[in-house]
C-alpha cells in the first residue's frame, strides 16, 4: 500500500471541515488592513473528511511504535497506561486555560504539587520545575540556573567552563555550549568512566558546573561520583545529575544524598508517559533549596485553602511558557500513583534483572561482544554491545541488522550517542514492561539475523523487506540541491513546479 503525499491528493472544491460562519453583519475582508490581504490562496490539499481520516490512518498503520516490540535503549521504553490518556483527554485537563484564575484550576495545581513532592522523595531535591519540554531543555535549564547562580555571586565572568564526560548525553555538552560556556569533555578511561585524576586536572576556578549521568548508557556506574561532586564543589562549581538513566537505580539512589545540586527526570521515559514520536515531553528539573530561588517561574505555593502561583524575584524567568506540559505531568502522576514506591523498586529490580538476562543470552550469539568487557561487574539497566566482529566477517553493519529486525516486528535498537567509543555498537534496554517471552523473541530474532548475515549478507544489507517502504537513501539528505523539507521544495528541485 503506497500512500501518496497529501499534497498530491484531493480535488478542487472538496471540503474536509468547515469552520463556523461569522454571525456579525460586517464584511470580514474589510477588517483586514488592505496592504496585508492575502492575494493567493495557500496551496493546501482539498480533501473530504473521510479521505483525510483514511490517509492518516494509513500513515499510522505504517508506523510501528510500541505496537511492535521496542527495546530502544537509553530511552527506557515503558508501557504508557491508557488510563492516563483517558484522563488527560478530559475537559478538566485538555480544556483548561493556563491564564484561568488559579482558584478555578486547583485540581491541576494540586497534582503538579503532589508530583513535585514525589520527585522530592525520590531525589532529595527541594523544588522542581516542569517547564522544560524534555531532557535537553532540563539540561539547558541547568545552564541557565548555573548562570544565575554564579551571576548572583558575581562570578559569572570568571566561571566559563562546564565539565562533562564522553559518556554524557549530548544534551549536556550542547546546552552548555549553547549557553555560552566552554565545554571540557573528560574521556572514558579503562574502568568505563574518566578517572578522578582527570577530573581534578580539569577543575579550576573557571569551573561553573559538572553535568553528568550515572550509570551511563553502557550500564556502567561511576563509583567515585561522590568524590567527583566534592571536587567540583570545592572548586565552586555546581553539580547536575542527568537522571535519564534513572530506571535501574530508582528508589536506591537519591541525587541530593550523593551531593548533587540539581537533577532532572524524563517523565516521558522513566515515568510512563508517551513519547509521541518526540514530545510533548517533560524534563522535570529539580534543585537544592539554595538554587531554588533561581528556578524559572511561576512557583506553586500551598496556602491555606489551596495553591497559588507566585513569581519569585530571583527567578531566571521562563524556560518555556506557563507551567510546562501539564498533561504529561498528570500522566506521570497517574503512572507513579499506580506504581507506588514498591512498584518503582520492582521496576528498577526488573530493569536490571532483565538486562542481565538479555546480556547473558546475547553474548552467546557468536560474534557479539560487550563494550568494556574488562568491567566485569554486572551492568545495570542496559549493556552496550558491539557487532564489529560480524561486520568484519560479513560486511553487515549494526544499521543493517537494525533494519532487518524490523521485518520481524521489532523496532530499531539504539546504537550509541556520538562519539562512538566502540565500533558497530548497539544498546538495547529491557525495562520492566516487556514480558520474558518478548525479550526471548527479540534475542531469537537478533540471533536469526546474525545467522542471515553470515548466510545471506545481501538479504540483511538490503533490508527491510516487509515494511511499508524499503531502505531509504540517505545520501542526499545533507545536499542543498537535493534535500527537501517541503513538498514545494521537492517539486522545484525535481523540476515539477
Amino acid at each position, binding site marked *: 500500500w503506497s500512500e501518496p503525499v497529501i*499534497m498530491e491528493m*484531493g480535488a478542487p472544491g472538496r471540503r474536509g471541515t468547515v469552520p463556523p460562519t461569522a454571525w*456579525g453583519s460586517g464584511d*470580514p475582508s474589510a*477588517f*483586514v*488592513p488592505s496592504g496585508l490581504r492575502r492575494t493567493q*490562496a495557500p*496551496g493546501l490539499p*482539498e480533501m473530504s473528511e473521510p479521505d483525510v481520516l483514511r490517509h492518516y490512518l*494509513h*500513515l*499510522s498503520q505504517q*508506523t*510501528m511504535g510500541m505496537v511492535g516490540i*521496542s527495546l*530502544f535503549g537509553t530511552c527506557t521504553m*515503558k508501557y504508557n497506561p491508557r*488510563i492516563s490518556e483517558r*484522563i488527560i483527554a*478530559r*475537559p478538566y485537563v485538555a480544556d*483548561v*486555560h493556563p491564564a*484561568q484564575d488559579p482558584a*478555578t484550576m486547583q485540581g*491541576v495545581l494540586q497534582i503538579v504539587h503532589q508530583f513535585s513532592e514525589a520527585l522530592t*522523595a525520590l531525589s532529595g531535591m527541594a523544588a522542581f520545575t516542569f517547564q522544560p*519540554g*524534555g531532557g*535537553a*531543555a532540563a539540561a539547558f535549564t541547568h545552564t541557565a540556573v548555573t548562570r544565575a547562580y554564579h551571576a548572583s555571586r558575581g562570578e559569572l565572568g570568571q566561571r566559563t567552563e562546564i565539565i562533562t564526560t564522553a559518556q554524557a548525553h*549530548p544534551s549536556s*555538552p550542547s*546546552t552548555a*555550549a549553547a549557553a555560552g560556556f566552554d565545554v571540557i569533555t573528560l574521556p572514558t578511561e579503562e574502568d568505563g568512566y574518566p578517572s578522578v585524576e582527570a577530573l581534578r586536572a580539569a577543575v579550576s576556578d573557571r569551573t561553573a558546573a559538572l553535568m553528568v549521568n550515572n550509570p551511563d548508557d553502557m550500564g556502567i556506574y561511576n*563509583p567515585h561520583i561522590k568524590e567527583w561532586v566534592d571536587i567540583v564543589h570545592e572548586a565552586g562549581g555546581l553539580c547536575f545529575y542527568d537522571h535519564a538513566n534513572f530506571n535501574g537505580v530508582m528508589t536506591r539512589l537519591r541525587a541530593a544524598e550523593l551531593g548533587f545540586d540539581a537533577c532532572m527526570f524524563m517523565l516521558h521515559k522513566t515515568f510512563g508517559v508517551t513519547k509521541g*514520536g518526540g514530545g*510533548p515531553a517533560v524534563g522535570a528539573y529539580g534543585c537544592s533549596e539554595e538554587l531554588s530561588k533561581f528556578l524559572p517561574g511561576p512557583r506553586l505555593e500551598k496556602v491555606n485553602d489551596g495553591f497559588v502561583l507566585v513569581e519569585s524575584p530571583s527567578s531566571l*524567568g*521562563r524556560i518555556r*511558557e*506557563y507551567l510546562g506540559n501539564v*498533561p504529561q505531568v498528570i500522566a506521570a502522576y497517574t503512572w507513579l500513583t*499506580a*506504581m507506588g*514506591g*514498591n*512498584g518503582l*523498586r520492582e521496576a528498577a529490580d*526488573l530493569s*536490571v534483572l532483565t538486562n542481565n538476562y538479555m546480556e547473558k543470552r546475547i553474548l552467546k550469539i557468536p560474534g557479539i561482544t560487550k563494550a568494556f568487557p574488562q568491567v566485569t561487574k554486572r551492568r545495570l539497566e542496559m549493556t552496550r554491545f558491539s557487532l564489529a566482529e560480524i561486520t568484519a566477517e560479513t560486511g553487515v553493519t549494526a544499521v543493517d541488522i537494525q533494519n532487518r529486525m524490523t521485518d520481524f516486528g521489532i523496532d*530499531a535498537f539504539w546504537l550509541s550517542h*556520538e562519539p562512538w567509543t566502540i565500533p558497530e555498537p548497539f544498546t538495547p534496554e529491557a525495562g*520492566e514492561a516487556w514480558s520474558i517471552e518478548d525479550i526471548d523473541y527479540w534475542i531469537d530474532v537478533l540471533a536469526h539475523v546474525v545467522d542471515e548475515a553470515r548466510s545471506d549478507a545481501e538479504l540483511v544489507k538490503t533490508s527491510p523487506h516487509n515494511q511499508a*517502504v524499503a531502505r531509504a537513501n*540517505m545520501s542526499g539528505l545533507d545536499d542543498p540541491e537535493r*534535500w527537501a*523539507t517541503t513538498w514545494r*521544495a521537492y517539486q522545484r528541485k525535481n523540476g515539477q513546479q
Partner: protein
Amino acid sequence: MSPLTPHPYMGNSTETAHARMLSAVGASSVEELFEQIPADHYGTQGITLPDGIVSEAELERHVDGILRSNANTRDHLSFLGAGSWQHYIPAVCDEIAGRSEFLTSVWGTPSSDHGRNQAWFEFSSQLGELLDLEFVGLPVYSWGSAGGNALRMAARLTGRNRVIVTAAIDPERRAVIESYCGKQGSARALEILDLGYDPATGQVDLDDLAAKLDDSIAAVYIDTPNHLGVFETQAAEITTRVHAVGAEMIVGTDPLSLGIVAPPASYGADIVIGSTQPLGVPLNAGGGVGGFIATRDEERYAREFPTLQVSLTDTLVAGERAFGLTLFGQSSYGSREEANDWTGNSVYLWAIRNTVYMALMGPAGFSEIGSTIISNAHETAQRLSAIDGVTVRFPSEYFKEFVIDFNDTGLTVADINKRLLADGIFGGKDLSVDFPELGQSALYCVTEVHSESDIDRLTSSLRKAVQR
C-alpha cells in the same frame, strides 16, 4: 515496602519470572546485580512514597477526585487568549493523534517510522504553503522557543550580537526569549533592545526603530498580530529598513490568520516563526503550545536551523519515496560540545495534530476561519464598547484579540473578572501588571468558537459587572 505482588504494567513481576531470570544469570538475588553501586551511595532516608494503587478503578477514582474540581473552557465561557487560544478541534485530529502507533513511536528506522515521518513531512509541507516558505523545521517547544532560536540563528548569520524585539509581546514569550538569548549573561549572550509601540495603534513605533536600528543589529523581531491583538501594517516598511542595515527580519505570526492575511515572506521576512497550538491542539492548561521556524530554502538559513527536519528521499526500490532526517549532524545530537544551539524531544505529536488540521481545513477552510474570527472579534468589540465606560483601546487593525480599556469604569480588571466568573465567564487576560501603561485593560480573545448568544451573555454580564 510490600512483598512482590504482580503489577499489571510489569509482566515479569512474578516470582516465577524472577526465579527464571535469576537462575539464567546465575545470581541468587536481585540485590547481587547492583554490585557496582557502593554501599554508601544508597539513599539513607528511604523512599517515603506510598505503595501503588494497583487497581485502575481506584486509581481513576483518586485522580478524577482531584481533577474534577477544575473549571474549564468547556463548562465556562472563556475570553482568555494571550498565547493559548481556544479554537475548535475537529474530531479527526483527536482520532489520529490518539492512535497508539503515533502515541508510542520513538525513533525507529525510516522504514518502521515511515508513516509518522511522512506525516511530519506533510506538516512542514502544508505549513510551508501557508507561510509561502520552502524550508520548515519540525516544531520546537513554543513560540517563545522559536523566537529564541530564530534570534540566535540571526546572530550567527550576521555575526552580530544585538537584537531588537517588539515590546508588544507576550511577557511569557519574552521571558523565554531572554533565557535563550542568555539573559543572565555569558560569553555568547545577545543583547535585547526593546522596540516600543505606538500608544495610538499598538503597532511598532517607527521612530523608536530608527533610533535603535544600525549595523550592529543582528535582527529585528516583531509579531503580527502582536500581543495587543493588532496587525503590523508597517511590516513591509520595517523589513526594508531592517534589510538596509544587513540585519535579519524575524516575524512571528498566527497561522490561523494566514488564510486572509499575507504571509510575512511576501514582504520579505527572513525567518518566520509562530505558534502551532491554534492548529488543532488543546489548551492543556498551557501544555498545548508549540512553535515553528521557517525560512526560504537557502543553504545559508538551512545550515543554522537548530531543529530536526525530515526530507523526502528515495529508497532502494525504484520510484518509492521515504523520509529521512536532513542536516542531522548540525543538530546537537551530532555536534555535542561544538553545538551552537540545542534540540531534543519537542512537541512532535502536536505536529501530527497540526498536519491533520491543515489537511482538513484546506485553502477554503483557512480563508473562512480567518474571516469568521476577524468578523466575530470586531463585532464583539463593537458591542462591548457600547457599554458605558468600556472602550476598545486599539480599535481598528486587530485579528482575534483586542484590548478592552476599563479605566473609565473605575474598577480593576481583577474585580470585573471576579464578577464575570460568578456568571461562569472567564473574562479577558488582565494586562494591568505586564502593561501598566494601559492601566486597567484586558486582552479579550474571540474566535470561531464564540456564538452570538455567547457574546450576548458576555455583554449582559459585563454590563452588570461595571454598573456600580
